[in-house]
């Protein structure tokens, strides 16, 4: 079963209007691997969520089945088939 990535509205135009993306994975992998697949498809989306070093952008949260990825290892957080990843911009700014 594919991994489902749910995008916030601000990023829909960066993914051709899609609200969710699906990534097939044959075996357990990491969040970074999923984001690498997305980067190959949608580079304009990718650069909004990770910088050029591959670091997750500070004010974007990646919830993995409801748990924020930084509590699970950040980009190295384990991902298994059927996982749901929700990208939600954090509360920031003034």
């Amino acid at each position, binding site marked *: 079963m594919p991994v489902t990535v749910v995008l916030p509205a*601000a*990023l829909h135009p960066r993914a051709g209007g899609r609200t969710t993306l699906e990534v097939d994975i044959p075996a357990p992998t990491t969040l970074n691997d999923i984001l690498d697949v997305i980067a190959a498809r949608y*580079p*304009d989306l990718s*650069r*909004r*969520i990770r*910088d*050029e*070093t591959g*670091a997750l*952008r500070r*004010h*974007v949260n990646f919830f993995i089945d409801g748990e924020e990825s930084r509590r699970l290892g950040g980009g190295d957080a384990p991902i298994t088939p059927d996982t749901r990843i929700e990208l939600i*911009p*954090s509360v*920031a*700014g003034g």
Partner: protein
Amino acid sequence: MDTSNTQQVLVAIGTRKGLFLATGSGVDWEVTGPHHAMTDVYAVAIDTRRATPRLLVGITSEHWGPSVAVSDDLGRTWTEPDHAPVAFPTDTGAALARVWQLAPGPVDEPDVVYAGVEPSALFRSEDGGLTYEFVRGLWDHPHREHWMPGFGGQAVHSVLPHPREAGRVTVAMSTGGVYVTEDGGRSFGASNQGISAYFMPDPYPEFGQCVHKIAQHPDRPERFFAQNHHGVYRSDDGARTWQSIADGLPSDFGFPMVVHPHKPDTIYTFPLVADAMRFPPDGRCRVYRSDDAGATWRALTEGLPSEGYWSAVMRDALCVDNAQTAGVYFGTRCGEVYASRDEGEHWTRVAAHLPDVFSVRAAVI
């Protein structure tokens, strides 16, 4: 107000929360925006080397990171490349924090645009500012590990391509100071002799100065002007040595430094009291102009608030246009923008109640 200068001008105003565009001839201004809402716009350029000027903006979203967008229809539509237009090479281990400066190159290189960025580095575009290549010579400079961030970050904020000598570019950063390349960016040399760094053990070091802004006139490119973190300077030898021109100003602290578009001896700045008192002296909103390369200064006040004004002008928020009778423009941290269409003699307010203004550029359209 002198209304004889009736050429239409576009004023691009970069703020903490987006870009605003003002169009007018000096009395009534039409303001649109915010464009790129909720991004901070540190860098704005209007590239007048094209039949229709190209607008370039360095935008940074707190959520989605930094980028550069361009418009070829005066701001009606914008384009950005899919891949990051400015990005550090993998081997540097660095990530772009913000574009601080977008500087069109010389007239005979119409597609060259430079970007000065945070962390301190230089990038060069050969496609009119759509995509940029890393200038490695500055990054590899042995001084780099000693450069320190100022209050606003560690960035290359001034980029001055020589108008005639290809490969000669002068940059300035805070902190670090002035550096010059004469070989197209392969190597850079520090160029700060005479500029004070009072906050260092050696007050006149080879490098490490907190230069806030440098300016150069294309008709007299061996001459530079600098507004320093305390200190106002001129160089007559290609930035090799610097002499103080602060006498006659109410303070030697401030951020911007601008040269008149047609008069190489005429310069503008906006003094603040001091490092620890970043207010206009006496709470009076005053631009200062020198018509003799810094030997004497005169306050320009007609039309500007004469009391109770406590807002600062940042390093890129004072500019001139390219009109025959030059226009002068500035924006403040309280979200006001003022314009003079007669070289600073008379001022009118272009806009108010904007977010705090970081950058202003203007050009005849």
